[in-house]
């Protein structure tokens, strides 16, 4: 642990300090007191539930939002940003969860876009650019080919490239907004190594995450926000996770993963020999009523692809999907829905919801055929059903007529769940059901899944969060490179066993 004991040596002056920042949108106060102080050579965690104001604060630091009030200093000098370029100019770089590189350009071109090293005659010097990119990756300790086209790079590699770009800009402050949400275990470890490396070279890093194990493994200090306000800053070594959670939610959260034992009934879903060339092969499994089966594995192992094939979004080459004994037509989501399936997809903004439509219209989308009589939709019944389900799931919204884009992430996820539960499914696929949502809503979602299982719904859960898998699942199927490499009962599902099967299938098959 780093020595932060007061008295011995006073801490270095902060490289960035924001205090009392206010930002409002219409009647909505997104940030009432945005306060954070980042020192050079530290990794600083920013935590809070969704809607606590973290994203707004980051956008102010990035120059995307202009605060209505508050003090903002970089290296002791007051600053005021009008654009993202202003923020970059003083040395602040933001690495987003899913970076947006130019897919047709090479890695090196992406790093140096708009400021390519010039050679003679003022033309771009490709050799110089490549050499500089190589040096950057060497410093980061990550081998990436600078001549590779950016298209098809993993999210993890794209983040590294963004970091390389930030370093090449002499960034003094690096902000990482939930960088690990879409990464697998190994990729997270590599990212952390890079972050520590940068810290040791004197950069200040602001790290935003919902994962406590990561926060405690990586950071030096933690700033907690709640309801748009600054709550406290702690030395990481001096606090515990429960203390932080209490500050985040303003209350105690009993338990995070409360799957209760449910009566396991008949086989609901039966998948046999499902194969799609080059993506997944020979997938066999069944899910029984009342059971939660988790599909674990690294990102890219083919879990989501299997779920999409089962639900009929994508085609498959061989195999069969049966629901309650009856064959489900391939490549036809409507047939899957009619048979009694539901699918809460991983990307709720692109796949789960139509962001510009109202809460009511989103919930009624799955019901649109059943709501119709003589071919016409009964508007009163539509509003009633939507109100009923959003109320049951405690969706917090000003009005059911508001677009879902105005809701917080957790509430959006509840709308996705509401629209599927309203179809009264017999089998539900939930893909990363708690990704990017706050602790309070997370435990609500877990309680809900547990309750649904208790009502005899068969659930297939895809999750990259090990504690969630271990806490919620009755059985764990682990996938590696398109195949199921382990089937573990709840009792046998240890973190080691799951990670082992997910990463090293060879040794495990013995």
């Amino acid at each position, binding site marked *: 642990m780093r020595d932060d004991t007061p008295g011995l040596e006073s801490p270095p002056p902060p490289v960035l300090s924001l205090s009392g920042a206010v930002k409002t949108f219409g009647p909505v106060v997104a940030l009432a007191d945005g306060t954070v102080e980042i020192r050079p050579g530290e990794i600083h965690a920013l935590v809070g539930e969704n809607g606590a104001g973290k994203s707004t604060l980051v956008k102010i630091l990035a120059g995307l939002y202009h605060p209505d009030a508050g003090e903002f200093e970089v290296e002791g000098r007051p600053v005021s940003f009008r654009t993202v370029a202003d923020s970059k100019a003083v040395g602040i770089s933001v690495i987003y969860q899913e970076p947006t590189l130019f897919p047709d350009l090479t890695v090196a071109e992406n790093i140096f876009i708009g400021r390519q090293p010039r050679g003679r005659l003022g033309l771009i010097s490709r050799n110089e650019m490549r050499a500089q990119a190589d040096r950057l990756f060497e410093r980061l300790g990550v081998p990436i080919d600078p001549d590779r086209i950016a298209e098809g790079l993993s999210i993890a590699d794209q983040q590294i490239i963004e970091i390389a770009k930030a370093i090449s800009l002499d960034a003094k402050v690096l902000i990482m907004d939930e960088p690990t949400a879409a990464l697998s275990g190994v990729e997270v470890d590599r990212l952390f190594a890079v972050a520590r490396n940068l810290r040791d070279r004197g950069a200040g890093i602001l790290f935003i995450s919902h994962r406590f194990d990561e926060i405690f493994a990586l950071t030096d200090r933690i700033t907690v926000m709640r309801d748009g306000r600054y709550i406290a800053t702690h030395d990481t070594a001096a606090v515990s996770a429960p203390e932080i959670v209490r500050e985040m939610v303003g209350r105690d959260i009993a338990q995070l993963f409360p799957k209760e034992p449910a009566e396991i009934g008949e086989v609901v879903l039966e998948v046999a020999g499902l194969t799609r060339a080059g993506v997944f092969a020979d997938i066999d499994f069944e899910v029984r009523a009342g059971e939660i089966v988790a599909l674990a594995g690294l990102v890219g192992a083919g879990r989501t692809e299997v779920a999409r094939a089962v639900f009929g979004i994508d085609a498959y080459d061989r195999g069969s999907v049966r629901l309650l004994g009856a064959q489900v037509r391939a490549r036809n989501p409507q047939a899957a829905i009619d048979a009694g399936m539901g699918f809460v997809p991983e990307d709720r903004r692109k796949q789960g919801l139509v962001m*510009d439509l109202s809460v009511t219209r989103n919930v009624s989308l799955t019901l649109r055929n059943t709501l119709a009589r003589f071919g*016409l939709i009964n508007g009163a019944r539509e509003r009633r059903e939507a109100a*009923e389900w959003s109320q049951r799931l405690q969706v917090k919204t000003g009005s059911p007529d508001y677009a879902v884009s105005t809701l917080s992430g957790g509430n959006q996820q509840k709308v996705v769940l509401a629209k599927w539960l309203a179809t009264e499914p017999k089998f539900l696929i939930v893909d990363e059901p708690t990704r990017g949502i706050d602790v309070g809503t997370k435990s609500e979602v877990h309680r809900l899944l547990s*309750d649904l299982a208790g009502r005899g719904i068969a659930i297939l859960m895809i999750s990259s969060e090990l504690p969630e898998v271990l806490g919620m699942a009755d059985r764990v199927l682990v996938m590696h490179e398109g195949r199921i490499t382990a089937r573990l009962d709840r009792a046998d599902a240890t973190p080691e066993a799951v990670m082992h099967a997910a990463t090293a299938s060879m040794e495990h098959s013995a």
Partner: protein
Amino acid sequence: MSETNTKESTATSVLSADTTKTLRDEPRGRTGWSRILLGRDAIMIYALIATIVVAMISVPRFASPVTTGFLLLDVIPVLLIAMPMTLIIITGEIDLSVASIAGLTSASIGVLWQAGFDIGLVLVLGVVIGLVAGAFNGFLVAVIGLPSLAVTIGTLALFRGLALVVIGDNAVANFPPELTGFFTSKLGATGIPTVMIGVVIIVLAFGVVLHFTPFGRGLYALGYSPEAARFVGIHVARSKFWLYVASGGVSALAGIFWTLRYSSARSDNASGLELAVIAAVLLGGVSIFGGKGSIPGVVAGVLLIGTINYALRLGRVSDVVLIIVTGTLLIASVITPSIADAIRRRRHDQRLRRSLPQA
């Protein structure tokens, strides 16, 4: 609020069946009315009424029964084609070949009639030609997945070219007088053209399909997010395909109307009409990006443009000015919402700055 609400402390208990009682508490206030009265559609209708009133006062001879008849006859082709166009633009696509389909239909029925076929059969074949042309667009856009802008620019030229091949430079004018007479006849003394009955039925049919059926609900979702639409079982390709078929069919009807109203089948009938249709649809509040729009708004948009054009023509304004006016209106209708939004935001910011403690 009733006592049952107190039970809803956790998601678990909320899911139990007994809480369905709380549904009666659902607020169903009058907020809906003010929304309707101040909505985009309503504003278009006010603008239409205001235009009509101004025209009646300031344009001599506008306030006469003849006006209704001519004005409506003028807008019918645009109004008809605007219906499927609205649905297509809501899904985020476009169909630029509509006027060419109308022209191809016009040319074909002229040639078929001259070849001695029964007039009933000729009209049916005309519609079939439109449906086939629409299906061709639909196949390329929905099934193959090509961009609709490129496809329909291509078929705009293709269908117009076919029309020219079919009929050449000729015009066929000798349609049965009782039929052409019917197409310009009025309902008694009202001055309303008899064919408006059919037009109203088509408009209502599209309105019902868009606003009250599961299919229509799907189109909005599709326009905003095709990916999310697939996840709720909407058949993206199939929906788009049938919209293009409908567009072809309705364009053929507009072509038939055009031919029989002017009693002239020519290859260049209705040329350039696609831009008038798209202008009216956008003016009527449909978003060119998809997902937004309504049939009442589009009907008001079509009538508004039609009224302004007719009034200006009565006032002896030249055609060049007419085109400029239509273009200006279209641009104004597109930028007005964003200007209103910017003003609202600025006002809010000022109020906020004043309310903050001065440091």
